[in-house]
């Protein structure tokens, strides 16, 4: 048998080549994940030199069952799901529509528009937050002026928690739609032009072309985008930190974990470092992402097999 890496000990070569990558994966990803699951059973503060006590499931009991705080945690969990559903759906649709439009060679300056829509992605959460804080400045900012024109006024990010939450959904979509669009664009460009020509010769209209040619052949891009959007939105927290801070009625699970784990405070109020508790909350989020991610992935894989064969 002709084996590329030869015979005997030479067969070890591919494994040795893989070793740095595997080691990197263990150190950067799997190791911390395993450590988090272990720390969730302790009262660790995350401080070097601090005593760590094994407390079993106490963190989980507190997070899931202790008083009104646990109900607030479930509210945050619900808010996380709502955030994910809205962000995933809207970002997916906008990304798809934008990609289809900007894939049309008849559109002038389409490279300019592609760049324009992708630009927010490269800015990072802090800059994105700053831009929108200025845009939504309630004392004479552009959006305040627009509201004023219609006889309305709002505190935007600092007002009603529901309104602030809606703004973060909008900003999250604005910030990440460029990636969705680019994945769809790359998918669209892999569809052979002959398919469109054949459909045209068969007399198909635009909707029929999209439904019977574009949509089925975009399946790999659809799957990638859906999974990325779902997981990304379930884990989102940076924009909440930058735009709103720690405010009742707006926290999602990701931000709650950050605030608890790192003792984030309001002003000079002293809080505690509770990384064991935050680790337990992280495990809850992990289970949520795992269950949703695996379910969606299974569904998408079956769909792909059905369509692509």
């Amino acid at each position, binding site marked *: 048998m002709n084996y590329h890496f*030869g015979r005997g000990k*030479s067969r070890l*070569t591919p494994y*040795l*080549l893989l*070793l*740095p990558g595997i*080691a*990197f994966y263990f*150190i950067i990803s799997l190791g911390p994940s395993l450590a988090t699951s272990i720390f969730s059973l302790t009262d660790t*503060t*995350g*401080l*070097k*030199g*601090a*005593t760590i006590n094994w407390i079993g499931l106490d963190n989980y009991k*507190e997070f899931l069952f*202790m*008083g*009104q*705080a*646990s*109900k*607030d945690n479930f509210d945050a969990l619900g808010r996380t799901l709502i955030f994910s559903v809205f962000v995933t759906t809207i970002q997916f649709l906008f990304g798809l529509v934008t990609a289809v439009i900007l894939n049309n060679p008849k559109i002038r300056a389409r490279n300019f528009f592609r760049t324009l829509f992708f630009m927010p992605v490269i800015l990072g959460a802090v800059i994105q937050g700053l831009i929108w*804080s200025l845009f*939504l*400045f*309630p*004392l*004479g*900012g552009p959006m*305040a002026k627009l509201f004023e024109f219609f006889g309305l*006024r709002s*505190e*935007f*990010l*600092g*007002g*009603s*928690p*529901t309104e602030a939450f809606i703004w973060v959904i909008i900003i999250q979509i604005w910030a990440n739609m460029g990636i969705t669009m680019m994945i769809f664009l790359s998918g669209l460009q892999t569809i052979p032009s002959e398919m469109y020509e054949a459909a045209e010769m068969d007399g198909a209209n635009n909707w029929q072309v999209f439904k019977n040619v574009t949509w089925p052949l975009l399946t790999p891009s659809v799957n990638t985008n859906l999974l990325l959007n779902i997981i990304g939105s379930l884990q989102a927290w940076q924009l909440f930190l930058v735009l709103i*801070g*720690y*405010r*009742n*009625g707006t926290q999602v699970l990701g931000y709650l974990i950050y605030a608890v784990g*790192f*003792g*984030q*405070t*309001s*002003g*000079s*109020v*002293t*809080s*505690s*470092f*509770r990384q064991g508790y935050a680790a337990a909350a992280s495990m809850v989020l992990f289970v949520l992402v795992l269950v949703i991610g695996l379910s969606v992935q299974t569904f998408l894989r079956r769909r792909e097999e059905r369509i692509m064969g």
Partner: protein
Amino acid sequence: MFKKIYKVITILMVFAIFLAACAPKETAPSTSDGSSSEPVAAEKVTLRVLVHQNPPMVEFMEAFNKSFSDKYPNVTIDMSVVNANDLSTVTQTRLTANDIDVIDIFGFANGAQPYMKLVDKPNWQQLIEAGLLMDISDQAFVKNYDQPTIDDAGSFNGKVYAVNLGRVSYSGIYYNKDLFAANNVTVPTTWDELVTACETFTAAGTPCMTAGGKDGWPIFVGAYGLTGAIYPDQAALVEGLWTGTIKWNDAKALDMWEKMKVYAQNMMEPGASGVAGDAAPGRFASGAVAMFPGGTWYASAIEAAEPAFDWGYIPFPGSDNADDNKYLFGKYDQGWAIAANTPNKEVALNYLAEFSTPENYQAFANAVGFIPTQPSATLDTKIGAEVAPYLENFRVGYEQYWIAPKGSGQFANPWASYFKPFGTYDDAKELADKVQADLQSGLDAVK
């Protein structure tokens, strides 16, 4: 054969480089007592200092750092400035990474009291018990600070870990003297007078108050004076809440919530939630609003924004009885501590010693407007003169004592920002019941 050997060696080298990259940095050799060996005097040292964002303080520290480096040319100061909300997070991560030498730490507060159950240790205590803060009890510069400050704001188990640089009041209101005169409004000493004053300004087209609501806390901290006027003994308030003798929905508390509603909805200017914390003093100094509920630490920023601007500072008149409105509530603000594992121990100690000289400290107090914690320092500032009549009525405020029982809901605080337009509540009774229910849930959970 050579080709194979070459291939294996190449792989091992790549792996070795990877492992070397992951290895910890070489650290300075340690002595037997755990402290690092010190650089010789002429050796170049970069001292890493962490402070929280407070414009006059940052400005002073930049000038102080320059003079320190001029005096000790081998020392470069690398000062990081972070938002107050993020100070504990950055302190935790940088101390754990041994990436900081001198840290800004708020006065030690929120310690567990005998009547509290199942509460976590405050973060400063966690830092000390993890061995991350240096014991500075024997340092000569510590004696420059008054003993109550050393005991209350920087000591734990008989050892000193921080020197606190000043007390601040957060329960007062700045007022624009020119606007008051122009509108024939007298300085309010009772709640009714404050309401009338605000109605007068609003009718004249001038918003009554502003606050740096973008940072979140300035809206509700601005009303801490209101809570203080109704509950002057704030330590007793905290104990009463824990033991159930005081409830957030009893008649007295309901009076507070009704007033907080007026504060949030009628006194605070619309749009205040978008004003950044460090922009609010400038907005007040520009004459855009008549009053500015806030801490004494804002005084320098107001003066810097408009040096000729004429302002005054009064305790928040939250009670209908003027005698109840003579208290100022506050806290110990910024202090200095040193990382226990700093490789620059001598330089860090020298930095604090230099800062703590009476001359430098007085300049600092003048620049920042803190109520001094060195007995030799004087209140030379305008804010010093404004608060002087109330200093004997200075009290440590509620938030410095309060620790929420585990299991309490997120509304278990006396915060005016729960009211619309900053929050969701419009009815004082409904909010009072919610706050008490959230607190009671925690009290029941820790029984």
